[in-house]
């Protein structure tokens, strides 16, 4: 388990251990805001197990991906809301 994976969150390169979820990469890149709610409030992960959908982000152009259930891959482009 010494492998590391490098991906980009909002254009910022970040390296995480292999097997880490996208939510980990977002936090490791220094972002707390994952998405904006329907009324524009900042939100981040809540349940950590794929139920609440609060941690959803855009991964490789695919929207509404639950970052806590998605493993990081090398070269992945992750986009949070601003």
């Amino acid at each position: 388990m010494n492998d590391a994976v490098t991906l980009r969150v909002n254009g910022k390169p970040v390296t995480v251990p292999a097997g880490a979820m996208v939510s980990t990469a977002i936090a490791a890149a220094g972002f707390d805001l994952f998405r904006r709610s329907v009324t524009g409030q900042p939100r981040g992960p809540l349940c950590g197990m794929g139920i609440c959908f609060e941690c959803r982000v855009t991964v490789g152009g695919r929207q509404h991906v639950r970052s806590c259930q998605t493993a990081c891959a090398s070269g992945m482009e992750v986009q949070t809301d601003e």
Partner: protein
Amino acid sequence: MSEGDRSFDVLVIGAGPAGLAAACRAAAARAIVCLVDDNPRPGGQIWRASLDRVPGPAVPWIATAARLGVRMIEGARVFAAPEPGRLALETGAGEPLDLRYRSLVLATGARERFVPFPGWTLPNAMGAGGLQSLVKSGFPVRGKKVVVAGSGPLLPAVARYLRHAGADVRLIAEQAPLAALARFARSLLHHPHKLAEAAIFGGSLAGVRYLTSSWPVSAQGDGRVQSVTLARGGKTFTESCDYLACGFGLVPNTELASLLGCRVSEGVAVDDYQRTTVEGVYAAGEITGIGGVDLALVEGEIAGHAAAGQTERASRLFQARDRQRHFARSLARSFTLREELKHLAPDDTLVCRCEDVSLGRVRAATGWREAKLQTRCGMGPCQSRVCGPAVEFLLGWKPDSVRPPLFPVSVNSLSQAGDSGS
């Protein structure tokens, strides 16, 4: 996958302790078994593996399942039940998957109960088990100040894990009174193995304040949580933190059981053999009522034996299950949520985080059905999995009926499930 590859004697939904035990026991009786989980790896929430891959208690069960030829499908979730004996799933890659069964074992586990209070929607305010599972996948908390609050034996377990991961756990706030915890501790005397666990928690928590009769009243912060205000002894105090981990016990994941037509009260209703009220459908583990890992295991074993027709073997485990149920009852009594928690949220606090619906707007409705129609409360992607139990606790409303799809799915998957969406 060919037609034959998609039909099973026993299909088990959920690869936590109950599901793994059910799959192993059914497969040992030579049934053709498939075990499905929506997470990327088996083990469920309680046995979720860490990135450091310390061999956990799930490992021998997973090995046994593999040795017995159990077909494992990970990262797939059930979203509809188009007809008896058939489930519609979507894989992690967004592809539809159709599975058929003679017997079905539901082992869909539990989720955390969240109690709304001002600031609970801020980033970095999350579930207690929620933060733990994120940290297990590498989420960085080293040196971060964390307050753990809510109720139940999960809180010290989470605090211990977070400390191990390098977090600066400031305190644990347990809403239950000390007397109730003392009763709980005494009940552990009947379960020496659990007592040992409790002692371990106690030992490694030396130095962390464990407050009883204490609960969060609000969280504050600019764009993320920066402090939490807690009630204790008729007063409040504020603690600064980088993360707030709050869980108020667990709620059974009964949605799929409800969709199938199984009777659900506190959990999914089952008989001695873990049979639900629907022919050929069994339920085991936390979905039949919160009782912990040991009860889940024995219920899973019984369900697996019974689903494979081994009723005699199943009945030999009834006594062991009774002992674990005794523990479950003591757990529920000890950590009953106090009345004060129903009054933390003023009318402008959000209850539904998907559609941003405030408690005041929900309260103005006459019940769930009207609240959904008028405010879209519970209509977002989580399908009321978060707000449902909160509203039930705050307003006493029982959950509305469950309809497919159980989760947001692609149009492709929906169309493959045929008439299930109607």
